[in-house]
């Protein structure tokens, strides 16, 4: 849908919803909507990212298609989110990646980076089986390359989120509060967003789990998100600890099976494998009416890169003393690099914008 039409359609949907309000206790989108009377682009950007796509409001809607009003809140807000990701991308020109990015581009990127590593690698058939990664790709190259790319990704993501917050966050001040908006319960207003993020409360905000189809409520989507989220954090912690070992104490990889980086990385890896694979299966079983199918590629690329990064990482751990190690290493590094490069221009951003929206809604 062209941008002007999408904004107009979003405003139409929210105007119908605001006159109905039957869904007001499902999630924080509707209470936030009730504080408004008109819905501009920034309002819609904020509301869209507050939506966790739990799906309840589509099946509850008396105006859902084929009704002439054609109200499908989860789908409309999903489309607006895609627009938001593009609008707030930095540099702006790369926002286009959100509409071009798919499984194929993700894998191609991983393959290209892997090939580059393979070409640049010093020795793909080492004679010793010490498991020394740096004999394949030098330490300095790894640190510099990943350091720079990671820094870039962090800056790009931070700029996007800061711009999103400054554009939409100011909106919540000075809103008309003619009626007392029915707040989703909050205990301690500062802690609430943290708790909501860490528990994914809005995937079960109404006391039951979110739906995958009419009257089909399952906890899987929440659990698999938890696996992915905490798996990611554990892997991140593993990398951080390893970096400290390396740079502060001068302890070089490979580390022991019982060492902190390996324990953190392995448990995180199991979570990521289960999470990414599970979410892949789950999204194919979900009622397609709930989602914006033009974004399937974004989901698939992110999930595939997460899964492959983890799989190659774990394989590397197990097979680090085998001759296949150098090949695994270049594929792993290539995949990780592809994941890092695509973080600011892929599905990863949904978590950041959603978290930001929860803080704004506070």
């Amino acid at each position, binding site marked *: 849908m062209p941008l002007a039409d999408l904004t107009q359609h979003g405003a139409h949907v929210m105007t119908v919803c605001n006159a109905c309000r039957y869904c007001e*206790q499902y999630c924080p989108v509707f209470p936030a909507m009730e504080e408004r009377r008109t819905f501009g682009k920034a309002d819609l950007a904020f509301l869209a990212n507050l939506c966790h796509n739990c799906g*309840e409001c589509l099946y509850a809607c008396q105006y859902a298609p084929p009704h002439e009003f054609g109200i499908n809140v989860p789908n409309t807000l999903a489309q607006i989110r895609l627009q938001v990701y593009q609008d707030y991308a930095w540099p702006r020109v790369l926002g286009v990646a959100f509409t071009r990015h798919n499984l194929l581009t993700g894998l191609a990127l991983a393959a290209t980076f892997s090939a580059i590593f393979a070409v640049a690698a010093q020795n793909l058939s080492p004679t010793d089986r010490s498991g020394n990664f740096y004999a394949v790709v030098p330490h300095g190259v790894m640190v510099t390359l990943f350091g720079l790319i990671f820094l870039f990704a962090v800056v790009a993501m931070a700029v996007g989120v800061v711009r999103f917050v400054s554009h939409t966050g100011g909106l919540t001040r000075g809103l008309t509060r003619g009626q007392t908006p029915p707040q989703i319960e909050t205990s301690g207003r500062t802690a609430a967003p943290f708790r909501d993020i860490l528990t994914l409360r809005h995937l079960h905000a109404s006391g039951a789990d979110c739906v995958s189809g009419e009257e089909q409520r399952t906890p899987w989507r929440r659990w698999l998100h938890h696996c992915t989220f905490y798996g990611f954090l554990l892997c991140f912690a593993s990398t951080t600890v390893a970096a400290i070992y390396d740079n502060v104490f001068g302890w070089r990889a490979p580390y022991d099976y019982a060492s902190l980086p390996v324990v953190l990385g392995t448990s995180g890896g199991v979570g990521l494998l289960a999470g990414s694979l599970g979410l892949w299966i789950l999204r194919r079983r979900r009622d397609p009416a709930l989602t914006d199918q033009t974004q399937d590629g974004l989901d698939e690329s992110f999930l595939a890169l997460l899964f492959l990064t983890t799989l190659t990482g774990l394989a590397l751990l197990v097979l680090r003393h085998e001759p296949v190690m150098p090949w695994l290493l270049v594929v792993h590094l290539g995949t990780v690099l592809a994941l890092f490069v695509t973080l600011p221009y892929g599905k990863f951003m949904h978590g950041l914008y959603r978290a930001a929206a929860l803080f704004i809604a506070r």
Partner: protein
Amino acid sequence: MIESEALEYDVVVVGGGNAALCAALTAGETLRQAHGRPAGRVIVLERAPREFRGGNSRHTRNLRCAHDAPTAVLTGSYSEDEFYADLLRVNANETDESLARLLICRSKTCTEWMSRCGVRFQSALRGTLHLSRTNAFFLGGGKALMNSYYAAAERMGIDVLYDAEVVSIDVRDGVFRSVRLQPDDRRGVRDHWELRGKALILASGGFESNLAWLKDAWGDAADNFIVRGTPYNTGTPLRAMLDAGAQPIGDPRGCHAIAVDARAPKFDGGIVTRLDCIPLGIVVNRHGERFADEGEDLWPKRYASWGMLVARQPGQLAYCLVDAKVADLFMPSVFPPIVADTIPELAQRLGMPAGRVSETVARFNDAVGPGTFNLDTLDDCRTHGLTPEKSHWAQRLDTPPYWGYPLKPGITFTYLGLRVDETMRVMTTGGRPMDNVYAAGEIMAGNVLRRGYIAGIGMTIGTVFGRIAGESAARAAR
């Protein structure tokens, strides 16, 4: 799935809304528990396609319940006597007392039974409308409620047929034998087909979507009515039963109607077309004259009288005018207001004589006395020496921009129905109950509702009487 031309069920339920599903679920429970028969001997005939199932219940959001103490879904207490007094007040003291008392007494057990069927409610202390003491609100509204009921019916093994239009009912000497259904090419049924049953429950709604029937009752005025709910309530089963000797109850003009935005679609506009601004401004007809007290009572108690007030105006049209002072104090509606900086300009845009409207507003403004505006109570802002007066929340219209909304009568459901006894058996014109024919919901709401309406009682009627009809029919089918 339905192939045979002469199937026989224990209980045939005509209709697919709240009353129908409450009846079918209770009939299923009763058959299974009391008689050891499978609940699969119950069939629901829903005329609408699956996407529009649930009749007017799709558009509802709460039901009114008596209760002695606060519950998870209701605050305070609401005694049976208070409920009865509220009902009598809006019906000018006309009702069937024993049925009304039965309704109110049984309303106490509704939410618990509904929860067992998988229905979820909003928590009591939050929500847009201030009705949490008297009304339990469905989480997500009436369509979510119906989804829960249909899922429960499926779990129980009850057959549900969509696009199933009943064209005639075989009832002779008070004994039901079968219903005839419209041919349906999609099911490969090219002819009218027959479905036999041991007991029949009619829960097929009123006749509010039947424009010809409305015209019989209202004359040409009916052309200007908006039907707030389902287009499928054409009253075919009601007419068939009246023709078969069932005793009617209620006035053909009796109905629940509210004032809706005149720009609403003819059918199925639901809740979003209603306008809550009436107590905050003034309402004039197309000649620019006021015709009723806009501030008579708190809005939840008063909203249901405005449909008939507007229906009696020329062209069944009226206009609500408010000013910028109150623009944020009412629920937004789906259609934008018509806006102007002066009253004459607004009148012109709305198609009314500017001079008359200005005069009406000036007279009204002069009559407004001092007071402390408070929308939560019956405040002391009122007019003095004006006819009709505005007895509360009267404030001058003096702060531009001015907003106008066009109003038409929006009919929710009709009250003309079938007289029933306390087991929901349909009565004959001879005054005796039919053997195996029961009714619940809108089609018999006229037993209790004669003139007015109180919020949420339609769903109470469907739930309580649906359950009684379901149990009675299952016993009769034994």
